[in-house]
């Protein structure tokens, strides 16, 4: 099967610092791919390159949907519209908005009523807004948060804020979902639930997932393939078994004698 996302020799420099150097990555439809590495290895930078927040200094980043898209030439909101959704390492919810509004906002790229419909509350506004509301509540239900739909997102407990971020990303109806440390700060029980949830939504929504995670139980538990970054360079790739026993990876994480 052809890949969904390819990074070809991608680099990103900030001044003299090579945050990402000649990285090659392929993500195939339906896969869960892990991206690991020590702090400062360039994992989040790679996410920012894929989502258009940064422009690559070199190399090519392509999304292969119905048409092939050069991600270096698209802006973040266009990339989101093409079906790449993400969550953030340091949760970025719309804090003052309600839980429901956070999810409904993400449907924005799919709305089918015009500004005039919105201003004059025409029947087409009323119809699609109530349809949208129903879909958003349905989605929140999957995340066991439908009963909290009317409270501001900032009032949710930490673990649920992380889950809401995933729900919001799903509302965009993406093909590729990028998760930046989804299990950070969760206790073992929450982490186990999260793993089940990720597996479940992948099948339910037909997703391809690329995830950054420090919790090895998550990475080894759900990823089919893993890429390892260190100082901006790709030092290993393979199945969880390969990675566990790869001497270079062990060196990167534990240092040399």
């Amino acid at each position, binding site marked *: 099967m052809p890949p969904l996302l390819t990074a070809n020799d991608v680099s990103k420099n900030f001044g003299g610092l090579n945050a990402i150097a000649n990285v090659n990555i392929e993500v195939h439809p339906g896969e869960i791919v892990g991206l690991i590495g020590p702090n400062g290895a360039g994992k989040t930078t790679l996410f920012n390159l894929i989502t258009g927040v940064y422009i690559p200094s070199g190399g090519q980043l392509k999304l292969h949907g119905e048409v092939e898209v050069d991600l270096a030439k698209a802006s973040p909101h266009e990339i989101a519209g093409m079906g790449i959704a993400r969550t953030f390492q340091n949760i970025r919810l719309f804090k003052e908005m309600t839980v429901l509004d956070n999810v409904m906002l993400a449907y924005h790229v799919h709305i089918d009523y015009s*500004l005039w419909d919105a201003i004059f509350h025409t029947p087409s506004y009323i119809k699609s807004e109530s349809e949208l509301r129903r879909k958003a509540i349905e989605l929140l239900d999957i995340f066991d948060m439908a009963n909290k739909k009317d409270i501001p997102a900032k009032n949710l407990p930490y673990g649920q804020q992380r889950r809401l971020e995933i729900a919001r990303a799903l509302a965009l109806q993406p093909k590729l979902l990028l998760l930046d440390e989804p299990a950070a700060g969760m206790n073992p029980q929450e982490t186990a639930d999260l793993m089940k949830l990720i597996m479940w939504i992948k099948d339910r929504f037909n997703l391809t997932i690329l995830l950054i995670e420090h919790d090895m139980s998550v990475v080894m538990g759900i990823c089919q393939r893993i890429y390892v970054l260190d100082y901006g360079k790709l030092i290993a790739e393979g199945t969880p078994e390969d990675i566990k026993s790869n001497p270079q990876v062990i060196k990167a994480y534990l240092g040399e004698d």
Partner: protein
Amino acid sequence: MADKRRNLIRNIVTLAAIYAIIQLLISFDIIDQHLQLNLFLLCINIILAVSLNLITGFTGQFSLGHAGFMAIGAYVSAVMTLKLHLPFPLAIAASAVSAAIVGVLVGIPTLRLRGDYLAIATLGLSEIIRIIALNIDYIGGASGLADIPRYVNWPWIFAMTAGTIIIIYNFIHSSYGRACIAIREDDIAAESMGIDIAHYKILAFTIGAFFAGIAGSLYANYFYFLKPNAFGFMKSIDILVMVVFGGLGSITGSVVGAAALTLLSMVLQDLPTLRMILYALLLLVIMLYRPQGLLGNAELSWKLLKRGDKDAAATNSK
């Protein structure tokens, strides 16, 4: 759905009642010339505050240039009715559209600015507008324009004020409004959710300026008289104070803020010095004890009224 229809009917009845009662009071001269002047000023301030709230409160773009947009509307309307003898409906439409065009023009170069920097840029722009007006002899220069025909009456003021509130309220409660609020909350996240930030920032400026233009037109064709200094820095600050006083992010708040501060000015207009001191004190008290403004981001609604004041206070303080 039935609930929605009932609320719609209630809203229409309430609006009609407000309109009729005030119209009657004006006809029987219970609202005399002096009161009427302040009432009209109050409504113009409501339009200004609600439209600035869309830009600053909901979209989070700190603007100090609202008086500039108002000035554009006022001068366009004055010139069209006084110099060109065109009908007022055409003049008010042209005022709104020209202010909106300037809004787009301001929106584009200031897209990369945020916070204080944006405030300074918008302030600069409104000063440019004022100084241009000051230096064009055709529109009277520093002495301004006099004898502008008075076309504005209660039906006009009422329709424009109600229209502004309804349209901006509807906008905020749609997907487009959510996009604006999301930009205020976290622009990076909004962008990653597919929101074209530049587009919505400009849209907010455009709609806000459109209604400020209407306010300017109403002002010009009610008060007979226009001069550039009426649209200085202090006017922008006045509008901003109303918005902050009522609560950034609450349309009801802007209405309340505009009403409260206009009435305060009216009551104290014989004591100009004391007025400024009280004004400042009031602001200090609000900022110290209720920094989110009177209403925070809560809106007045039928549901809220039914639940009673106690619950309303509880939701507000959250």
